[in-house]
């Protein structure tokens, strides 16, 4: 009994940090409507900063002062970020905001390693809380008891701040109606900046307070952000009480989940999240999301199938690509195969994002599931390559069918957070379930059969499947189903009013997209001869998002170009610099701010500008005609 009670207290102590970070995220979202992906990065910075300060200054004042000053310094960095970056993208679609703040996260990862080095750092114990309390023979660290007491205090302080101060009233008003608050003459800029500073302060404080419990390392950011996303999905974005309740819930589930499913404890959290989403899609304390914003300034060019000339050009490009083995070496062919595989992956996400309007932040899950599917079939069942290639992606299909069912119940940022959380769950299973997946060591020795083993033949195979996948997806875009999907994206109200079951249409699209991603993953397993949990990881999901964005979200097949350019640049970049994340992150931020239409989107705009003189006059003429 005592053991369970101690386990319960450990859960409560873990909830403290989680609550601080999640409440910060919620406060920022409530006012600015930005889901700050970089929140995990600020948490990590808080931990590193606190580590340095508490090492430098000794004594109780040095420690506790160091914790608070660290959080303040990080909050100041947050202010800088808000003023320089976020102010430029407040009116952009959520996807761009998530991506820009993710770019920041990438940059911080490299910066942190540059400053503090790649090794784990062990922080000092907290003065006054070094010992443990004995509870019926079980030890409870006294610092845990301090953390347990802290979170209700923080909750109370936040409550007073929002209920009893003028600033708090303005924040609550802005949470309900930003435009009205602006119309009343409140300086919105500084309101937003101060809210962001508070949110970042809470995140950094959460990180700083963890140093006596946990080693500081440069992967903390992603670990916490996924947990925080789960917390806010369960608790409801924008609700501080929700963040508190859900943080406790998730921490306790983790604490006891380890006892029930020692290998895959995260399953329990997933099950609870699934139940909450079915019963209350906006979280326990959340409110339904307002309608998604449309991309401002992006022109609405109705999509059309390729003209016969364009078809000929695409075919020409394909033939040209197929001639690569005539003059390129083995390394170039391997790179070519990899690019072809990424084209498949990016095209599958593009279908879901552009046509379906559903920005998945965890698309690598289905890519990786396809790869693992092949590895299981080829290694465990010993099936020939053709059979594995055909059946392997079915694991991606299955994953997409299960997760997609829940994900399409939501939209916008909730959808993005949920898909990310699902992908992380799949990753955790692959990572922790060593007996089946090999864990971190992966599954080795997945080699292609003889007919596809040579670099040239494998390249041709990849190219053919990529061309087929892109073509099939294009056909679907212009099929009746594609129109039903676009209708659901454009106006849920109208599509329901003409008999379209939007959720089922979106679910079907999710399954199609996940299956195609799985096909890419299946080829990837054969290309590398092995499968690792990385193939399911967040960074791969984000690579896909960047490829889609680079090609152009509002195009039909921009992802193809995006994948080719991104992957080629990425392979080159990694060979040139150790700071590839810093460069990539900076590139993402720059792209979102300066270049939101992507390569193909920009080209289309330029082409339309060339054409525009006569189309515009025709338009005007007909207007006048009807006005007569």
């Amino acid at each position, binding site marked *: 009994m005592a053991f369970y009670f101690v386990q319960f207290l450990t859960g409560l102590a873990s909830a403290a940090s989680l609550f601080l970070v999640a409440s910060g995220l919620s406060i920022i979202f409530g006012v600015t409507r930005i889901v700050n992906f970089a929140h995990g990065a600020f948490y990590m910075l808080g931990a590193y900063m606190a580590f340095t300060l508490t090492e430098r200054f000794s004594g109780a004042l040095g420690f506790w002062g160091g914790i608070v000053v660290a959080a303040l310094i990080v909050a100041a960095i947050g202010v800088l970020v808000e003023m320089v970056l976020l102010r430029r993208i407040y009116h952009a679609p959520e996807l761009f905001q998530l991506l820009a703040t993710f770019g920041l996260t990438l940059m911080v990862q490299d910066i942190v390693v540059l400053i503090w080095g790649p090794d784990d750092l062990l922080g000092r114990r907290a003065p006054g809380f070094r010992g443990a309390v004995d509870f019926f023979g079980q030890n409870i660290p006294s610092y845990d008891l301090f953390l347990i007491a802290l979170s209700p205090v923080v909750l109370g302080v936040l409550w007073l701040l929002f209920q009893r101060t003028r600033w708090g009233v303005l924040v609550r008003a802005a949470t309900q109606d930003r435009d009205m608050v602006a119309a009343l003459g409140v300086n919105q800029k500084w309101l937003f900046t101060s809210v962001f500073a508070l949110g970042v302060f809470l995140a950094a404080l959460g990180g700083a307070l963890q140093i006596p419990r946990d080693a500081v390392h440069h992967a903390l950011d992603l670990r916490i952000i996924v947990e925080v996303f789960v917390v806010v999905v369960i608790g409801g974005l924008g609700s501080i009480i929700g963040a508190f309740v859900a943080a406790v819930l998730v921490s306790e589930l983790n604490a006891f989940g380890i006892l029930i499913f020692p290998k895959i404890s995260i399953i329990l959290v997933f099950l609870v999240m699934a139940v909450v989403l079915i019963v209350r899609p906006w979280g326990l304390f959340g409110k339904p999301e307002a309608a998604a914003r*449309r991309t401002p300034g992006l022109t*609405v*060019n*109705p*999509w059309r*199938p390729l003209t016969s000339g364009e078809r000929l050009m695409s075919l020409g490009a394909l033939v040209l690509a197929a001639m690569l083995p005539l003059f390129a070496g083995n390394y170039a062919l391997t790179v070519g195969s990899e690019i072809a595989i990424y084209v498949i992956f990016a095209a599958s996400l593009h279908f879901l994002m552009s046509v379906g309007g559903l920005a998945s932040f965890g698309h690598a899950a289905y890519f990786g599931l396809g790869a693992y599917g092949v590895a299981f079939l080829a290694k465990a069942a010993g099936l020939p390559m053709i059979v594995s290639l055909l059946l392997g992606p079915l694991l991606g299909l299955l994953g997409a069918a299960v997760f997609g069912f829940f994900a399409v119940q939501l939209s916008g940022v909730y959808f993005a957070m949920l898909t990310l959380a699902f992908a992380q769950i799949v990753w955790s299973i692959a990572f922790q379930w060593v007996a089946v997946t090999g864990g971190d060591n992966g599954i080795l020795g997945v080699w292609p059969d003889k007919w596809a083993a040579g670099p040239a033949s494998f390249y041709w195979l990849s190219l053919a499947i990529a061309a087929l996948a892109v073509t099939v997806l294009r*056909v*679907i875009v*212009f*099929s*009746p*189903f*594609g*129109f*039903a999907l*676009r*209708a659901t994206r*454009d*106006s849920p*109200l*109208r*599509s*329901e*009013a*003409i*008999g*379209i*079951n939007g959720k089922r*249409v979106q679910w*079907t699209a999710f399954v*199609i997209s996940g299956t195609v991603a799985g096909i890419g993953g299946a080829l990837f397993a054969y290309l590398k001869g092995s499968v690792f949990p990385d193939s399911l990881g967040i960074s791969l999901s984000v690579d896909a998002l960047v490829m889609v964005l680079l090609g152009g979200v509002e195009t039909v097949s921009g992802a193809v170009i995006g994948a080719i350019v991104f992957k080629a640049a990425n392979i080159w970049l990694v060979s040139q610099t150790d700071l590839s994340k810093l460069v990539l992150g900076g590139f993402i931020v720059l792209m979102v701010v300066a270049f939101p239409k992507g390569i193909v989107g920009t080209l289309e705009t330029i082409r339309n500008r060339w054409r525009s003189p006569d189309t515009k006059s025709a*338009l005007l003429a*007909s*207007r006048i005609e*009807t006005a007569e």
Partner: protein
Amino acid sequence: MSMAPTLLSVEALSKSYGGVHAVRSVSFELRAGEILALIGPNGAGKSTCFDMLNGQNIPDSGRITLLGEDTVGRKPRAIWRLGVGRTFQITATFPTMTVRENVQVALVSYGRQLFNLWGSTAQFARDEAGRLLDLVGMGAYAGRPCGELAYGDLKRLELAIALANQPKLLLMDEPTAGMAPRERIELMRLTARIAREQSIGVLFTEHDMDVVFEHADRILVLNRGSLIAEGSPEEVRGNPQVRAIYLGEGLVYDARHREGAGA
């Protein structure tokens, strides 16, 4: 006309939010080819009533019988399948598609081809879409991106979409809101003509009394959730209670109403 079959029959429909009775025990009938206006001041319960009819809101009690079927608790898309077309107060169309494609999507749904992954939508029911667009006077705009249309044209496009499932009943929520006066008259004339020709029943809510009195066969007047008058335009025009509401004598009515409630 009185011999036309009943399309819609509403019996003792009620809905309250907390202590507020948004709609109390409203009953009425609508016949094929009849144009029925639902009017009343802001907050009278028109929108709540409308949302319950089209499945966006579930009544606390009462019955809605549409074409012989009980529709309480059914989703909007299921009600559409029964043969109900809808237009919205603020137009809801598909801005990234062309005008023709907007209608084609509705036809795809009507033809139950929504999960057809392989066909070409461009060729799907192209003639039928063109016919519907011609009917509302939008034929010349078929290839135009919907996002570029003027508001009055969007309203006409919405009407074409609403007609795609060959409806027996049109539900139009403030069909002329946000339009210029001349456009209003034109749109309602067009609607009335189509309704008469195809024997479609029309139920619409409206704030513009000129539109209501010119086009409605019958008028229902809601106030504070209750039906206070029902009849031909002449009857409703002469009704003292209705006059009281619309001529700004609300206070008088209010006082009497409260006395009645207290007694």
